[in-house]
């Protein structure tokens, strides 16, 4: 029973990590995190999704991370709200914001929402550290497990799938 669950998790994680390059995996993770913490009903989130699918990065991992961070986003909302409110209520920038907002598609961007702006900026702020940390971790992991290449993982996944079928 437990071994079955472990094997399925292994298959799932293997399918997410098929891309060998740590940089691509880290980019997917970072974009997924950025998408996950943000509210989705705006053009910023949509644009990030487009970026995720356009760039050469690990899309599966990106989507999985987005889902995970979406679940955890209520935890970051208060901080994001405070951050977004302090930025959007800046007196000196009101004209710029208003001009941007009154442009066509301006309201669709959703930057007038405190959590959208706050979470986006917060995500951007931690994006590079996260990208760096994930890439380092993966590099270390791949160096400690040199025998199991991605082709082997794929083969193992195929085997497991056949067995399961």
């Amino acid at each position, binding site marked *: 029973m437990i071994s079955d669950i472990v094997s399925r998790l292994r298959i799932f994680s293997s399918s997410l990590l098929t891309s060998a390059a740590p940089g691509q995996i880290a980019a997917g993770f970072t974009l997924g995190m950025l998408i996950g913490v943000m*509210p989705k009903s705006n053009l910023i989130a949509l644009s990030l999704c487009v970026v995720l699918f356009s760039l050469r990065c690990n899309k599966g991992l990106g989507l999985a991370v987005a889902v995970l961070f979406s679940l955890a986003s209520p935890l970051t909302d208060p901080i994001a*709200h405070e951050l*977004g*409110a302090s930025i959007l209520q800046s007196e000196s920038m009101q*004209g710029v*914001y*208003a001009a941007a*907002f009154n442009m*066509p598609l301006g309201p*669709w961007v959703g930057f007038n929402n405190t959590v959208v702006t706050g979470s986006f900026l917060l995500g951007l702020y931690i994006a590079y550290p996260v990208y760096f940390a994930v890439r380092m971790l993966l590099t270390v992991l791949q160096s400690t497990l040199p025998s199991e290449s991605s082709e082997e993982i794929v083969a193992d996944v195929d085997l497991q799938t056949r067995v399961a079928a």
Partner: protein
Amino acid sequence: MMRGSRWQTWLPRLLFLGVALLAIQLALGLVARSVVVRSTQTATGMTLDAQYSKVEIRAGRVILGNLQFASTADVPSSVATAEVCELELEKQPLLHKQFIVRRGQLDGLQLDLPNSLAAQTAKKGTVTVDWFRDDADQVAAAWFSQVAQRLQQDAAQFDSMKQTEAFLASWTGQCTDIDTRGHELDQLATEILDSVAANQANPLRKVTFLAELPQRVAELQKKFADLRDRIDQQGDQLEQRRRNIVAARRRDVELVNKPIALDPVSADDLTAYLLRNEAVNPLDQLNAILQWARTTWPNSSVRPASGTRGEDVLFAGCEAQPNFLIRSLNLQGTARVANQPVELRGVLTNLSNSPVNHSEPIRLRLLACGPLPVELQATVDRTRGALHDSLLIDADGVLLPALKLGQPEQIALAVQPSIASLSISMSADGDKLTGEIQVVQHDVHLASSTGNEFSKFALSPALDDSLGKLNSLATRISLSGTIQEPKCALWSNLGSAVVEAMQRAAERVRSERTRELLAEAARQEDEQLASAERHLNERQAHWNTRFASLSKQLQTVATAERPSDRLSPSRVGRRLPGNSLVR
């Protein structure tokens, strides 16, 4: 070869384009439906379910089909259904995330007004209002008890009856006295006669007895005469009393012919007693509508939508505008009003999800055609922070169902189904509430029923006769106070009509009952007086005969039993010749 490769190139691309367009069409339909559903819920507080949706991009039109509006009450219930809704969108505002419906058409609308009103009143959190705080029920109950008390009558209460009973009580005593006295005299006479017989054997005592006999007989005769006089006087007394009783009877008749004196009761109290239960339901419904309007369209611009994260900041220089606005929506369908199906036509204007940010108030105008003409106008004004709601309803020919008014254990009225004209005018400005509801029922047929208190009296038919003259029933409810503490004043011609009818019915019942009681009392009095007279005559005849017999016997004895003459010298001397030597 070139042609074949070109065909193999463009056909998949064309197919992909077609599929993409279809997908876009489908996605736009889904998005449009989602937007309309969410916006409708925000704008009206009702949930909307549409079975299909379609977007015509070039025409900027959204078509929704098989719509179902349901209340968001604790127990969701269908408020209305519609077949098709066509919304013509303004394209430019879409770039600014604004869904502005220039013109719309809602066809096949089926409005379930009673269900929707019941759903609103059943909503949790709806403030229950004690509309009638007065003690009308107690006042009415006290008055009914008083009426019942006044109808309680007995023959013994009449003066003639009292006099008769008092006279008969004294009369019986007098008769007993006379009989006793008669028996005494009879005994005396018997004793004298017995003494005469006894003295026959004792000449010595006889002399003395016979000497006193005439005097004793004379005395007894006098006593006989006195008793006869008493008996004769009793006859005169009886006649005098009879005249007195007849006079008292006349006074009794005059007294009962006077109008029944009931304590005055406020017709409004009686109106409230009869109509309050029927009035509470529509008042609650109106109050629920008002509260629903206030909850759905608050006058504050800050209105966080459920599920929204964060706050939308309005930048300096930006004007807040509603995201969803229906400038004009034509309505066409049917509804059930007062259990009658009616054809509805109307127009809803300026419905938005944020009325406070729009320059025009929400207006709804509905016209019902056909046999039940109804006009409804509702205005919800939240412009520039205003808080004003008004509702006007005018209806003619409304078929009102049968009603039961009042408490069955006291006085209850059954109102047969009737045709009524209804006028509702209600306005809430801020918290201040004003309004008036007028109902005029024509060709009203009322039937009364009485409780146990009046069971002994045939009050109901008399009441029905009086209430039968009431052809139309007008009721007016005036609203005042605040939304939180509304007050209402109920007026109807029913209250005064019932007071008058009760007065008349009580008069009639009392008159009939008094007439019966008077006749019964007179019969009893006559019987008793006749019995007394008969008894008197019997006594008179008995004692006259007896006394005459005794008198005769005594007279005979007194005459026969004279004392013998004693021989005295003078008597002897007188009997001797004058020249006798002895003389």
